[in-house]
Each structure stands twice: as structure tokens, then as C-alpha cells.
């Protein structure tokens, strides 16, 4: 990348953009400038507000406050047509293509008057052909989009923007769905674009890509800009630290001696899933009375690990054991019966059923137990009193157990899930193993402190807790042992206080890993 000259024209300016969704402040007075011929990366963990910001810029959302200026002109809010006309092109994370139309039709859609009597395709075809050559975006104009590969669809999305003479390209996590080769081709296209004077905003949470393509990097955290760095003068470790935060505002946990091993992973492998790596030779022990923190940028194998604990999957090779008994058959129901409690990553889709009420959601995992049903008949009275116990015991703010859970805020929903998990449904001693996957994502400060204190309390009771989070502060504050996961490989365990955020950041960036670890599973 050639760095743009300092005096280069400013093509885009976001001025103190704020946007709130319910209780969540998705963007908090975010400002940024984009210069001609420049690539800036918008970096941040999931939920940091990157996509919201870009959707405001493009007019999909209306900001609560702030202004967007393109080439010195301010854009009317909530109007994609105006953004397009001003030269802003957006490549959405979830492609906005009609699968039943051809490539050419998708590109030309909306560029001609609806009332013109025919489709002037000759000129369109010539222009698309020229753009394909200029930017290295090979795709057949008459192919149905529904039949194209993901990489080809992305090229169509980019062509759509270029066809409308976009001067500013926004790419929302463009490489999330690409193979490494496709990603390289994309980067080549972006280099051609900047050489021709276009400017690019590149949204990502993959550090190496940001380092490879961007001139400047703007780091968002909890909806705020926490840093703007020149990629030529920084390194991955520094970016990772910025991305996940350096400030500490967490409950203090007293060190405890670890108990017996509850769950053990021995040289565990799982298959890769598209661009998401599976686990590679993971060896891990979850001890009673200990919080094991799993740090890492999302999409590095956390989901695969969580599925193994929750009973959703078995390893493709390697061994899993529970209280030193090897696990041969494994299912979510079995996991629950063996005392595994789960706080799923996505509380809306995996944790709850939105249109069920609190009582129904409270007994989702335990409705078959004798406490809640006999001979196929539900005991709703017991279910309701259980829900009321959770509501009282875990401070779930709600009108009552009969209300649909979708009406609750994220924090109160999470407290119900937490209460359900901690109660272990039927058993009274609480769960032996707790899988807490991103337990505080998107919650407000009060709810975060509550959930975290409950996890610490469960640890003190003797539960083995696996805490998965992208927030290094959270990991460092709560965990007795920290492992870092990167590309499916697991770092050794680091004791509390033995690593700085910057050191963990290097592990998260994939450095320090010995290469032989990721080789074939035959050795095991």
C-alpha cells in the first residue's frame, strides 16, 4: 500500500455519530475521516458497533445524533439512494443480491428509471465487462446469482458499487466468508481501486488482514473509538490490546486451590468448517473450583470447543472425559444430566425461545424431570414456582413469569438463563461444570457485574467454569487459568496475573504457537 499524502482530500467525514438500540448504546459519538486513495480499517470485537456505524453511513439506519459528510456535502439520514448518488458503495456482510436474477440484472437494478420501456443491457454489459477487467473481478454477467459461489457473489456486490461510480467502498467483514485465496484476490482488487483514487473502509476483526491492507486503523470498543493507529507504526499485539481493552473494572477474585479435574480434553481435533478452523490437538483440563478463561478473537475455534462441552458434538479424534470417565456417547440431554450447565453465546436464538413466556423458558432444559412432569403431563404449577424462584433469586426484572421473554432486556434475559443454568433444573447442588460463552456480551454495566459475580460464586461453590470471551479484561479479571485459542490451537495455561494484555495479544494474533502442534492427528 502506498500511503496517501497527508494533504490528500477528505472524502468522507463522520461527525459524532450516536445510535442507541434499546438499552444498548451501539455508537457513542463516533467520528472519523477518510482520505482519497486511503484504506482504513474499522476494527473491533463483535458488538463493538462497526456494522451499525456503516449502516448509518449508508442510510439503512438513522442515527440518533451526528452527521455524515461525503465530499463536503452532508447526507440526508436514512436514505440509501442519496448515499449511492453521493458515491458511497457498500458491500454488505450478508449479500444483498436477488438469487433469481442474473449478475447483470442485479448490478443494473435501480440504476435505470423504473418506467423506461426496456432494459438497456448493451451499455450495461460493456461497462460491467470493463470494470471486471480494470478491477480483476471476473464473473459471468448472465449467470444466475443463486448459482454462484460466495466469492463470486462478493465480486458481484463490489461490481454493483463500482457500476454506480462509487468513490468510497465500504466492505463489511468481507473476508469472513472467503477462502484465503479468494481473500488475496479481494485484496488485489482493493489495491487496484485505491490506485485509481477510490477510498475504502474495511471492517474486520482479523488482525493480520488489517495489517496487510489498511493504511490506518480505527479501533471501536463498546461503540466508542478507543484508538486510531497507523498500521505502519503498530503491530498485531498492540492492535489486539486496543481492540479488547486495557482498563480494568472487574470484581476481584481471590485465588483458590484448584480441585479435581471435572472435564478433560486430550489431543482433541474437530473438522474445519469453511473458513472457521476446527480444534487442533487441544489438551485442556477443567478443574473444580476454578474459572478457566478462553481468550481469542472470535472464529478461532471457540464455537467448536463450546459444542464439545455442551454435548452438541464429539471430537473427530482425541478423547473427552468427564470425571476421568471417557465420554463415548454425548448429547445435550446427556450433558445436562451429567451436570453441565450452559450459558449459550447467542441468548436470543440458542438460549431462549422468544415467544415463550418466562415459565416455559425456565423449564426448557428440565421439563422432562420428575419435578416438572409426570407420565407425560406438565406440572405447570411447579414450573411457575421454579420460574418465580429464578426471578427472585437472580433479580430478573420483569412483570411476572407469564410474560413473553422477548419483551425482556438482554440483561434480564441473561439473568434468567443464568438462573436456569445455576439451578441445574432438578438437582439441588448446582451444576458441576458451567460453560459460559460470551456471558456478558451486549449487557449494560450493572448486568455485567451481576453475571460475573455469579460466575465467581459458582466457582467458590466448587463448579468448574469455562469462560469464553473476546473481552480480555473480563478474561483476565475472572480467570484462574487463561488459555488463548488461535486458529484452533490452544496455548498453554497461564496462571492468574502471570501475563499482561499485550503478551496475551501476541498469542491471540497467532504468534508463539509452535507449528508442529497443528499437524495431523496421527501422533495421538
Amino acid at each position, binding site marked *: 500500500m502506498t500511503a496517501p499524502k497527508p494533504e490528500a482530500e477528505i472524502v468522507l467525514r463522520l461527525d459524532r455519530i450516536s445510535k442507541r*438500540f434499546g438499552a444498548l448504546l451501539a455508537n457513542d459519538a463516533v467520528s472519523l475521516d477518510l482520505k482519497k486513495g486511503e484504506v482504513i480499517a474499522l476494527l473491533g470485537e463483535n458488538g463493538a458497533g462497526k456494522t451499525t456505524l456503516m449502516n448509518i453511513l449508508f442510510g439503512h439506519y438513522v442515527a440518533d445524533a451526528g452527521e455524515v459528510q461525503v465530499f463536503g456535502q452532508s447526507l440526508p439520514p436514512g436514505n*440509501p439512494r442519496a448515499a*449511492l448518488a453521493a458515491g458511497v458503495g457498500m458491500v*454488505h456482510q450478508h449479500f*444483498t443480491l*436477488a438469487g433469481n436474477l442474473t449478475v447483470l440484472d442485479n448490478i443494473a*437494478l*435501480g440504476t435505470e428509471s423504473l418506467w423506461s420501456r*426496456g432494459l438497456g443491457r448493451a451499455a450495461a454489459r460493456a461497462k460491467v465487462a470493463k470494470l471486471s477487467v480494470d478491477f480483476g473481478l471476473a464473473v459471468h454477467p448472465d449467470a444466475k446469482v443463486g448459482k454462484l459461489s460466495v466469492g463470486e457473489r462478493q465480486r458481484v456486490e463490489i461490481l*454493483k458499487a463500482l457500476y454506480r461510480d462509487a468513490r468510497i467502498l465500504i466492505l463489511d467483514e468481507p473476508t469472513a466468508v472467503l477462502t484465503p485465496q479468494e481473500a488475496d484476490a479481494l485484496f488485489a482488487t482493493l489495491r487496484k481501486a485505491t490506485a485509481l483514487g477510490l477510498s475504502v473502509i474495511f471492517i474486520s476483526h482479523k488482525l493480520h488482514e488489517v495489517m496487510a491492507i489498511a493504511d490506518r486503523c480505527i479501533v471501536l470498543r463498546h461503540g466508542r473509538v478507543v484508538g486510531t493507529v497507523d498500521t505502519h507504526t503498530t503491530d498485531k499485539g498492540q492492535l489486539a490490546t486496543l481492540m479488547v481493552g486495557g482498563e480494568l473494572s472487574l470484581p476481584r477474585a481471590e485465588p483458590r486451590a484448584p480441585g479435581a479435574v471435572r472435564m478433560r480434553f486430550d489431543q482433541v481435533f474437530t473438522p474445519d468448517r469453511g473458513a472457521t478452523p476446527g480444534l487442533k490437538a487441544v489438551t485442556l483440563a477443567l478443574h473444580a473450583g476454578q474459572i478457566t478463561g478462553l481468550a481469542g478473537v472470535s472464529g478461532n475455534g471457540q464455537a467448536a470447543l463450546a459444542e464439545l462441552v455442551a454435548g452438541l458434538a464429539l471430537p473427530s479424534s482425541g478423547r473427552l472425559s468427564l470425571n476421568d470417565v471417557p465420554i463415548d456417547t454425548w448429547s445435550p440431554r446427556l450433558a445436562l444430566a451429567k451436570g453441565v450447565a450452559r450459558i449459550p453465546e447467542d441468548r436470543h436464538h440458542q438460549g431462549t425461545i422468544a415467544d415463550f413466556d418466562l415459565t416455559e423458558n425456565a423449564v426448557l432444559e428440565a421439563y422432562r424431570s420428575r419435578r416438572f412432569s409426570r407420565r407425560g403431563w406438565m406440572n405447570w404449577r411447579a414450573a411457575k414456582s421454579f420460574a418465580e424462584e429464578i426471578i427472585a433469586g437472580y433479580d430478573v426484572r420483569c412483570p411476572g413469569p407469564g410474560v413473553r421473554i422477548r419483551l425482556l432486556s438482554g440483561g434480564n434475559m441473561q439473568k434468567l438463563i443464568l438462573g436456569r443454568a445455576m439451578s441445574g433444573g432438578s438437582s439441588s447442588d448446582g451444576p458441576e461444570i458451567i460453560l459460559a460463552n460470551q456471558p456478558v456480551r451486549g449487557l449494560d454495566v450493572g448486568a455485567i457485574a451481576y453475571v460475573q459475580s455469579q460466575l465467581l460464586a459458582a466457582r467458590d461453590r466448587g463448579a468448574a467454569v469455562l469462560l469464553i470471551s473476546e473481552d480480555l479484561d473480563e478474561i483476565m479479571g475472572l480467570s484462574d487459568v487463561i488459555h488463548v485459542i488461535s486458529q484452533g490451537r490452544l496455548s498453554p495455561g497461564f496462571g492468574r496475573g502471570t501475563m499482561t494484555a499485550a503478551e496475551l495479544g501476541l498469542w491471540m494474533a497467532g504468534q508463539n504457537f509452535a507449528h508442529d502442534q497443528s499437524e495431523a492427528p496421527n501422533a495421538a
Partner: protein
Amino acid sequence: MTEIIDILISASFWAAVIRIASPLIFATMGELICERAGVLNLGIEGIMVIGAFAGWMGVYQGLPLWGGVATAMCAGMLFGLLQSILTVPFGLSQHVVGLGVTLLATSSASFTYRLMLPEVTSPPKIEPFQPLDIPVLSDLPWLGEAIFQQTALTWAAFAVAGLTAWVLFRTPLGLAVRAVGENPAAVEAQGLSVTGLRMGAVIVGSGLMAVGGAFLTLSAFSSFFFEMVNGRGWICVALVVFGAWKPGKAVLGALLFAGFDALQIRLQQTPIGTHLPYQLFLAAPYLLSILALILMSRRAEVPAALMTPYNKGER
């Protein structure tokens, strides 16, 4: 067997097929436009009733026949407006709204009928469309009677089918309608109005459904009675699926259904008809349609966003 062959070579059979298919073609094109834009319009049955009633009443009140067609179209578009407001900006269940519109339109027709003709016991007759005399073609032996002695409204039905196909596949407007039924987010990202396109499609489509209804009173029969639509709307919903959301195939489907219908009427009057219960004949077109639907629609490409409301800016 010879009875069937006799029927199939008679010119009057083919004339009847075209006549029976005409209202189905209008309404099927209307439904097809709605569904291509992503809205299942189950108001179709009621909208056909209101169209049949409004067209007939308009002519009875002194309007010319084409004035009756226009009246029917306006009435249909009015109910289409209701349907589209409830399903597009409000995003309500398209099934529930559609059935509601059908009930409302049907009962509006009977209410208005009683209001306007309080003392009439049998509905008055009007002078319907007459077969158009086309020079040379109408006088051809066999072919003339079979095909070229139809009313202007029949020719209009086939013209509408051609126009629908042309607009959907050869104009930017049709491109946008097809896109909005497939992925509304794509349409919005290209700066077009999802709401405007979908509402427009539902309103225009409903207008066509009403003209299909008006065909029954203004061309096929010369009067109005309440049971005259008799499930034709539902048949059209099936014909859209049968035609795989393509106008040409849907017209073929309408002709096929009309063929079964014309055949069973004639078969009832043959010796076969005396041996079998007539209900079997009445059911035959529907049974055969279901069979054809199963065979034809397996590879159909359903508009991906059919029945999915679009809410701008939703997380």
C-alpha cells in the same frame, strides 16, 4: 373412449376452453404479480366476487361495458390497497389478512347488492360482451368457431398475460418487482423503495383479479349471483404455483384446467355420464389439477421472500 375423441374434435369444446380460461388468466396474472413481489394475496377470491359485482352493477346502472370493467378494476384496487397496507408497511400475516379481505369483499358485495336492489328477487340481466367478428379468421371452417369467435374481454385476457410477461422480464420495473420478491434488502440497497414496489404490485394485481371476476358477469354470464366465483380464486393461487411463477406456464395451466372443466361438462351428457355419479365429473378438474400441480411444481423456484414482511432498519 370415442365419446372423448368426439368431444375433443368439436369446435365448441375449444371455444369453451378459451372462454372458461379467460377469467382464470386475468386473476392468475394478478396473483402472479403479487407473489413475484413477495406478497401472497389470498384476498383473490373475495376480490373476484367484488369485481364480478361491481362490473355488473356499473353496467346495470348505465355505464358502457368497458366502464363496467373499469369499475370492477377500481373496486379491486381499493381492496388491494387495504391488503397491501396491512401486509406491507404493517407487515401482518399475509394469510390472515388475505382471508380477511376475502370475507370482507364477499360480504361487501352482498351488502351493497341488498342496499341497491332491496326488492329484487332474481338479479336483473345486462347485455354482455358479444363475440367479436374478426374478418376472415372468424369465418374459417372449424378454426373460426373454435378460436376466433371470442369476446373482446377474452382477447384482453391474453393481452394482459403477454403484457405481464413483458413487464416482468423486459422492463426495469419488472426487474425491481422480481427482485423485491426475492430479496427486499437488495432492492433497498440499490436505493429503491421496497414498500412502494410491493404495494404497487398488490394494488395492480388486485385490479386484475377483479377484472377476472368481472369477466364472469360481463362476458360469460349476463347476470350476477353470489356463488358464481365458486373457488376460482383459489384455483388461480394454485395455477401460479403450477406455472412456477411464470406467466406463460400459468396461462397453459389455466387452459389445462379449463380443458378438464369443459370436458367434464360434456362427458356428463354422454353415455359415460349416465353410469357415473355427476359429482365425480365435477371433482375431476380439481383432482387432475392437484395431480398436475404435484408433477409440475417440484422444481419450481419460489420467490425467496414470498410471505416475508420487510422491516427497514430492523436488527
